[in-house]
């Protein structure tokens, strides 16, 4: 059953995307996990946690208003109630990647589920080799967590590259798809773990580009999205071949799903 939680604060990230701080009594989570958020009287959706798992405080969720439930959630004001149950799902292999280079590739809103992993990588920076964050989105106005990206870039011990699909002449950064950035990034292909999140088409292209760059399938991790409903492996709505995304994912190793991804019937 969902607990009754209250919105503590909200911040607009882009035209249609908001980050909510939610007081749910405090519970722990791992980078990449999600909660089911319930807009009372409207419905429930899975939303990844986008805050720092190492920092106690409210739950942080970043939500894009694309449907009835997500629109209702982004309209919630401080003090408003919503239901929360979770956390669910698998986690990014952050601790398991210690000693390796880590390449984080995010597309659009996919930066939100990856942000907890980036926080943890930075918190234990000395335990990793190169850390590369490659972020692609639609236009400069759609860049998520812009101030944070700028702050990370100023650290000098992390490579941060942002590209947009199209821009006007005021934008001085990269233009083109995020896969273009992979070949330019500095990492040891034999000792790299890649964390990828974004629209599924983007993830398929990205996994292909990482493979072309020499990263092994079993070292590439994707966050899949299917029609999750119960989140506990009971309803079968998110069945993906032999797996249930809510139970066995959402984060899965590429070698275990690469043959399933192009199958239209799944």
């Amino acid at each position, binding site marked *: 059953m969902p607990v009754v939680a209250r919105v503590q604060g909200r911040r607009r990230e882009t035209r249609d995307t908001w980050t909510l701080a939610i007081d749910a009594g405090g519970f722990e989570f791992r980078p990449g996990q999600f909660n089911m958020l319930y807009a009372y009287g409207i419905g429930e959706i899975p939303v990844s946690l986008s805050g720092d798992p190492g920092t106690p405080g409210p739950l942080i969720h970043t939500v894009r208003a694309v449907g009835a439930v997500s629109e209702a959630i982004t309209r919630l004001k401080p003090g408003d109630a919503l239901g929360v149950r979770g956390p669910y799902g698998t986690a990014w292999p952050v601790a398991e990647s210690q000693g390796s280079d880590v390449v984080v590739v995010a597309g659009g809103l996919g930066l939100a589920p990856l942000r907890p992993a980036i926080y943890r990588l930075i918190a234990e920076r000395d335990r990793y080799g190169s850390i590369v964050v490659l972020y692609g989105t639609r236009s400069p106005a759609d860049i998520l967590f812009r101030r944070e990206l700028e702050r990370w870039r100023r650290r000098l011990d992390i490579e941060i590259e942002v590209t947009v699909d*199209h821009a*006007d002449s005021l934008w001085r950064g990269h233009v*083109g798809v995020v896969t273009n950035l992979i070949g330019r990034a500095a990492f040891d292909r034999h000792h790299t773990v890649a964390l990828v999140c*974004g629209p599924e088409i983007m993830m398929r292209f990205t996994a292909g580009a990482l493979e072309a760059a020499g990263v092994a399938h079993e070292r590439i991790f994707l966050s899949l999205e299917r029609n999750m409903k119960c989140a506990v492996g009971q309803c079968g709505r998110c069945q993906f071949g032999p797996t249930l995304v809510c139970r066995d994912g959402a984060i899965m190793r590429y070698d275990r799903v690469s043959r399933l991804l192009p199958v239209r019937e799944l």
Partner: protein
Amino acid sequence: MQVHGLGRLIAEHPFFAGMAPEHRDLIGGCARNVRFGPSEYLFREGEPANEFFLVRHGRVALEINAPGRGPLRFLTVNTGEIVGEAWLVAPYRWIFDAQALELTRALSIEARCLRDKCEDNHDFGYEMMRRFMAMLVQRLHAAQLQILDVYGPGA
């Protein structure tokens, strides 16, 4: 001295990695060093595509001007990459603008010179086309992904 310098720059450019020295020498005979300041145009839409550019250092924006909307930037080309494909096929005219976003150093390869050498030496011509084709396919795939607008509404 200058030829030796150009030969070294050509050998160092990733586009020509692993190319036979005699083929690199053929390219060297068509090459010259160029430099563009920030905001300077390499070429403008409609101009003859008499050359293409190997970016040695810098960043170049490719853009198309749309009346009422201004320049629409669709690709940036970085160090180690190539600017320009229109020299390959008739009518050899640029269909977009290329503007340096920062100080950009490049090798300019004269198009007719290179096309003539490709015609005269088909082994060399095949090697050039093979390398260009790989780049063109990569850019085609990227353009397809851009057209799909995967981050757009409903994504």
